[in-house]
């Protein structure tokens, strides 16, 4: 039997996007269909995950052309996990958008574009073809452009110009890398490339090629010194958009880096040094950036950058444990960052402000909500045994066993600064008695929203918080998963065999 399930996440999202597009300005219908479609998608993702967990790597050849001739879709544990996480975050943000995004934006295609974005993410995770990956990346960036600019406010547009230029640059570098790769091997199928790249005699070119991929994906995953587009733009769109961006966009870049550097290229000492140096500087630069910000979303934006460093450090060390740590962190980060941007959205809807110096009183006014928000906030810090803590064990531990002391310093420094920044934010936003903020005319304050909308906004935060708690307290399960993923990534023969049907 053909494992059609591999492609279902794509089918569902594409269908949703088309249907939502056809229902152009009927936004109530769109809300209902988006949420229920996301639930359906979650079901499909769970199904896929379980299938992969039980049966191992699944593949399907689009067009029934055997690999490496057609485009292969591959669901190994890594991909299936990310598809599942995308489905979870997607459902959360879908509901959050239904509650929080204002009508005019919804009337101009918010939901169809949103589902195109999820389609792009699923595609990027599942594809086994390097050029096809490029196409999925393009879907992701064009949807992100549109989501970023929808509404066309000044800040949005300014941010978008930078976001746009640098992401296009990334695409160009990526395309250049593909050109070189094709020129060297004549193949595009990643499993096929695994052996063909190894056969190339000119190793300098292979290394150059790897560097091109590193920079192309590095821009997308916001590494130092390539991250500039992120702090310039992530705080400008509606919170729902920031949520999905913060949770998933940079992670696709990380995914691609992990995939390419475990499957196609091997990490030589030079690359390892580059990766680790970049990782440490990313940790440092993101942390340092977060210290000086006062806008909640900007703080989170810099923390997005900072925490990418953990994953790259794990990739750079290239041991099974280190990669497992990176994967664990990836899983944690997707859920927590999505959640935090939604939290910032709710705070904004309540107070109409993003400045931590002006905010305050949250603990006194909304004790239950504060407690709820504390879960993602302190998960992010990695207060043990919350989810952010566990991967650091693997990463620091591997730092010692591989003798990468700077990585340990970087990780500890970033953890400390994250703790400090978050605690400071907690003090300002939740503890302090804040300024009296002017009441804005026409602002859709949280208290004035209908009950349905309130539920639509808070329910996803609860959902993600509970999953985060599970990640923390059920860390054994996640670690087992991460270990399996790391094992599969490092021993890529199963992947290759599944694709090439050997």
């Amino acid at each position, binding site marked *: 039997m053909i494992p059609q399930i591999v492609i279902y996440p794509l089918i569902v999202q594409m269908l949703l996007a088309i249907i939502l597009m*056809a229902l152009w300005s009927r936004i109530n219908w769109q809300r209902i269909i988006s949420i229920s479609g996301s639930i359906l998608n979650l079901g499909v993702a769970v199904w896929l995950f379980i299938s992969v967990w039980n049966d191992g790597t699944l593949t399907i050849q689009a067009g*029934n052309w055997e690999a490496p001739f057609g485009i292969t879709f591959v669901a190994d544990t890594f991909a299936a996990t990310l598809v599942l996480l995308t489905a979870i975050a997607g459902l959360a943000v879908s509901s959050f958008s239904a509650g929080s995004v204002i009508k005019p934006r919804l009337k101009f295609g918010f939901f169809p574009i949103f589902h195109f974005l999820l389609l792009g993410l699923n595609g990027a995770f599942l594809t086994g073809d390097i050029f096809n990956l490029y196409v999925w990346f393009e879907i992701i960036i064009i949807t992100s452009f549109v989501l970023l600019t929808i509404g066309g406010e000044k800040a949005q547009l300014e941010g978008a110009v930078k976001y746009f230029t640098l992401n296009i640059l990334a695409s160009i570098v990526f395309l250049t890398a593909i050109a070189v790769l094709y020129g060297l091997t004549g193949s595009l199928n990643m499993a096929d490339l695994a052996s063909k790249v190894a056969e190339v005699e000119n190793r300098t070119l292979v290394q150059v090629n790897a560097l091109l991929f590193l920079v192309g994906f590095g821009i997308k995953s916001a590494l130092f010194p390539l991250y500039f587009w992120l702090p310039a733009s992530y705080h400008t769109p509606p919170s729902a958009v920031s949520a999905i961006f913060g949770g998933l966009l940079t992670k696709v870049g990380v995914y691609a880096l992990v995939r390419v550097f475990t499957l196609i290229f091997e990490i030589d000492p030079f690359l390892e040094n580059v990766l680790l140096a970049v990782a440490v500087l990313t940790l440092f630069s993101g942390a340092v950036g977060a210290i000086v910000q006062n806008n909640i979303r900007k703080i989170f934006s810099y923390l997005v950058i900072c925490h990418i460093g953990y994953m790259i450090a794990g990739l750079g060390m290239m041991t099974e444990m280190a990669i497992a740590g990176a994967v664990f962190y990836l899983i944690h980060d997707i859920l927590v960052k999505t959640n935090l941007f939604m939290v910032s959205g709710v705070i904004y809807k309540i107070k109409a402000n993003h400045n931590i110096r002006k905010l305050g009183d949250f603990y006194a006014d909304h004790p239950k909500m504060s407690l709820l928000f504390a879960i993602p906030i302190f998960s992010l810090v990695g207060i043990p045994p919350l989810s952010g803590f566990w991967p650091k064990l693997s990463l620091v531990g591997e730092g010692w066993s591989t003798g990468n002391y700077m990585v340990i310093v970087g990780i500890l420094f970033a953890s400390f600064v994250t703790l400090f920044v978050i605690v400071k934010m907690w003090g300002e936003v939740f503890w302090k008695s804040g300024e009296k903020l002017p009441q804005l005319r026409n602002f859709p304050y949280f208290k004035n929203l209908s009950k349905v909308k309130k539920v639509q906004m808070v329910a996803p935060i609860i959902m993600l918080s509970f999953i985060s708690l599970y990640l923390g307290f059920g860390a054994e399960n996640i670690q087992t998963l991460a270990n399996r993923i790391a094992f599969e990534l490092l021993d890529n023969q199963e992947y290759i065999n599944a694709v090439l049907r050997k």
Partner: protein
Amino acid sequence: MKTIILRTASNYMLPLLLLFSVFILLRGHYLPGGGFVGGLIASIAWVLHAFANGLGDTRKLLRFHPGFLMPAGLAVSFFSGVAPMIFAGKPFMTGLWYPDSLPIVGNLGSALFFDIGVYLVVQGVTLTIIFSISEST
């Protein structure tokens, strides 16, 4: 642009170009062309008409918002990709072929419908973009 010469010429060229676009679309599987170039030629035909006659006239001629072509075309392409999954239990995008051969088009298969979808989407996209821009200036 107020020029009778262009307007008149464009009225003759519109059907000619549309016809030509379909021709390019259908022969694509055998010779250079296909849904993409076909769609571009068709949109260029409409754009030419709009240049000569003004956007209002072209809109009237089209009778519906060109944006509608996008979901429609996507749906056509998408379903030609999904059809093999539904009807034959084959993977996504597997070609399904009608056994007999037709003129110009050659063998009738899901690939043709796929290309037709492309043709529609390209027109929808180009016209949406160009019309929106013209209206906003």
